[in-house]
């Protein structure tokens, strides 16, 4: 119940300021722009969105998600409003959940507004719409993961810029970890076991199967547990900071 109150306040705050609009517009321009330029959506003549569209999402989210999430706790700590929140009869956990859902909703809205690409691909050919839906789910899960990481970083600092830089670095690390060019270079330098360990930390391993339309339980477990761990970490950091 109190999560819902906090969720509504956070969401309103995103739209009371230009934050949400800027983020949504920039995401739409970049994601659709890349699809038609570097993604060669028209050139390949393939009625799927896997390489032309979804491929760019983790790269965009590593910048967009920290921008959405950086204020979540940093702002609260800078303004001292955390003292209000801490003395309201709500648990830290419900505040965390409310804030996380609000930030995720902003990015979900941005993602859903890319719907013209679905219409386009259906108009031009006959794609596998199941795979497209699964791609969207995967894409959203990647984004939620990055928002959760940002939230964790945000709990550590009262400075939004520090939070932005650190979380962008962490998210880009996770994007690079499973990226082909990177893993090939790593394979030359180390053993295959190391490569596998590093790859499983990255998002591609879990995202690419979903963007191909493959539902694997392990991917869901990975995303959900990663997000859960970040939120738990946030709660631990916030209580440790007060003690």
């Amino acid at each position: 119940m109190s999560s819902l109150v906090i969720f509504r306040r956070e969401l309103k705050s995103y739209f009371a300021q230009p934050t949400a609009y800027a983020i949504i517009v920039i995401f739409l321009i970049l994601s659709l722009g890349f699809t038609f330029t570097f993604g060669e959506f028209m050139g390949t003549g393939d009625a799927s969105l896997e390489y032309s569209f979804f491929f760019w999402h983790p790269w965009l989210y590593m910048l967009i998600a920290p921008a959405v999430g950086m204020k979540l706790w940093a702002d609260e700590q800078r303004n001292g409003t955390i003292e209000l929140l801490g003395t309201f009869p709500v648990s830290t956990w419900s505040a965390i959940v409310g804030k996380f859902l609000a930030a995720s909703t902003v990015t979900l809205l941005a993602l859903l507004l890319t719907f013209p690409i679905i219409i386009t691909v259906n108009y031009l050919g006959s794609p596998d719409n199941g795979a497209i839906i699964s791609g969207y789910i995967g894409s959203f899960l990647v984004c939620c993961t990055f928002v959760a990481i940002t939230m964790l970083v945000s709990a550590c600092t009262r400075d939004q810029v520090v939070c932005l830089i650190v979380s962008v670095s962490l998210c880009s690390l996770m994007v690079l970890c499973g990226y082909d060019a990177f893993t090939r270079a790593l394979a030359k330098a180390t053993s295959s076991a190391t490569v596998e360990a590093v790859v499983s930390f990255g998002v591609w391993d879990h995202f690419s199967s979903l963007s191909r339309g493959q539902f694997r339980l392990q991917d869901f477990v990975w995303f959900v547990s990663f997000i859960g761990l970040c939120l738990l970490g946030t709660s631990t950091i916030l209580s440790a900071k007060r003690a």
Partner: protein
Amino acid sequence: MIEVAKLSKHFGSKVAVDKLSFTVAKGEVLGFLGPNGAGKSTTMRMITGFIPPTSGDAKVCGISITENPAAAKTKIGYLPESAPLYNDMTVIGFLRFCAEIRSLSGSAKRDAVEKAIETCFLTSVAHQSIDTLSKGYRHRTCLAQALLHDPEVLILDEPTDGLDPNQKYEVRQLIKRLGQDKAILFSTHILEEVEAACTRAVIVDRGIIVADGTPAELIAQAPNGSLTDLFRKVTTTDTAA
């Protein structure tokens, strides 16, 4: 209504609050005095459940803040020191949010918000964005938040700080009026405020109580019959320590 028992807080090796004990009964307004860094805010933060005490406990209406924080917090209205607010909201939007988070809804919420706005003289700025408010209005908005749910216990950290003399007078009158059927703990630097609004006052220094009594009793203890002299006598200056 507020029972503080051997409350201590250590930050590393520094002792901010040292086994502090006092009570505030219903109908009592307790002035909490002391130099900067004496542990006033830390004590208030512990009573309101914002930070956990190193040892000891505080009870609000008989409910322990360490054992049952959620229930105890519903009984408390708290004005933090710097009067923090969400700058992106309007005054009325912020108060509605605070009412919702305190589980008020429907007409109860509307009435509570309306009454708080009236009590704190916020009618003229109710629909204004908080980041455009002057300091006095910001302070009163935060005070309105503390009064919203008509709590039995009010904890106010420097409620008159940064207000002009007229506003100070209004807030003092408000504290006095509310104190008739609530337990109020408020901290201040302004000694005349103690005589104007408090039924009792304690002076803390370096985390311990060094003087306790009604304003008249405290003045009687003072060498020259003024609270300022007593304050200077019983507390240490930060340059001396």
